[in-house]
């Protein structure tokens, strides 16, 4: 019995697959034909596309590329577009391309002059100062879930900047209206999830602590 059952299954399965394959092939052929038909008519905007349409998003402002001019830093977006999608750049900013070509022509002339000058004089290198945050300066904010919707935030690392912890504790509890205490390890414990507010408030209140020095750890 078992053999016969298996046989039935074996016979059934390939037949279904074949049907699917055939139908798929037919669909593909139809699609190809449609696409061939569509290609000359691409310029007509009236044709509705059912398939998912892909939209290119700017990596800097996260908006679709058309809306880059409304973002906060449109020039950075332009440069990004220029490096990654040159065709789109030419469509979206046709005026800029002309200007840039003129500029490039001028720049090349300038560069030639500069190169001549460089040959005569050795260049002076400029080094940018990069502020690296060491671990001894870091301020940590930890968020811990106490019950389902209750949180405790612990602030540690303020003493490294020469601040009085008791004063800071009082200021924070007055500012945000929450209960607070000092840990065994010298960290401030606060009632509620205050990580976002603290991250904004600390650099304003204590200018010696910068935003790069604050790290949020959520659990």
């Amino acid at each position, binding site marked *: 019995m078992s053999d016969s059952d298996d046989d039935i299954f074996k016979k059934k399965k390939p037949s279904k697959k074949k049907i699917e394959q055939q139908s798929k092939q037919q669909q593909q052929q139809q699609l190809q034909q449609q696409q061939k038909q569509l290609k000359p008519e691409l310029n007509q905007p009236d044709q509705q596309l*059912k398939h998912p349409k892909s939209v290119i998003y700017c990596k800097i402002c996260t908006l679709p590329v*058309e809306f880059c001019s409304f973002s906060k830093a449109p020039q950075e977006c332009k440069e990004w577009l220029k490096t990654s999608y040159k065709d789109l750049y030419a469509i979206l900013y046709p005026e800029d391309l002309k200007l840039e070509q003129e500029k490039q022509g001028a720049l090349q002339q300038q560069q030639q002059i500069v190169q001549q000058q460089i040959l005569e004089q050795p260049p002076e290198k400029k080094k940018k100062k990069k502020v690296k945050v060491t671990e001894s300066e870091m301020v940590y904010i930890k968020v811990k879930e106490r019950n389902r919707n209750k949180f405790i935030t612990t602030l540690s690392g303020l003493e490294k900047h020469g601040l009085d912890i008791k004063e800071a504790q009082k200021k924070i509890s007055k500012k945000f209206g929450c209960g607070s205490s000092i840990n065994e390890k010298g960290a401030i414990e606060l009632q509620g999830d205050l990580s976002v507010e603290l991250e904004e408030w600390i650099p304003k209140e204590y200018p010696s602590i910068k935003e790069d020095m604050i790290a949020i750890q959520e659990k």
Partner: protein
Amino acid sequence: MFKKLEDLSKPTLLSKTGVKELKQSFNTQYPFFKEIEDEVFPKKANIQSFKLRSEYKVEIVQVDKDYICFTKEDLVIPHLKLVHKFPDLLIKQQVDTGAIKHILSGSDVLAPGLISQGSTLNPAEKGQVVAIYGEGKENAMGIGIMNASSEQIKEDPKGHAIQLLHHLGDSLWQLSFK
């Protein structure tokens, strides 16, 4: 509506009945949805939902780490990325160039912006969810609810015509790029 999204709760798995209800409400609101149902909700997808603590009865739905839609009371409103993928899902309303700047910063669509030159007002009923397009722009930039029907707007173009719910660059939009 989504100016600050700091108080998102932890994600919870949506139950099968929850997914069914979502699909049903999608189908009743948007007749186009039937054709793309399997693409939006694949069968073996991990569907999660977030609740907002500040807003009442607002849930955000996530499928395989892509934000799909959010629910507000009885309405289901698609995320803008979904509208970009399937532009026929919503009714399209176009505003003139002057209004684009204000909508991107989160203001409602006022009636004169829908009637002046360069804008198109398609027929829609009161309370319907529509997508907002800009003049000369290909993609949608906002989603809102009609405050009055299109005929009423044509009769006396005054006041807030479309209440904006979700727009490019708001905090829900930025969530999907983190």
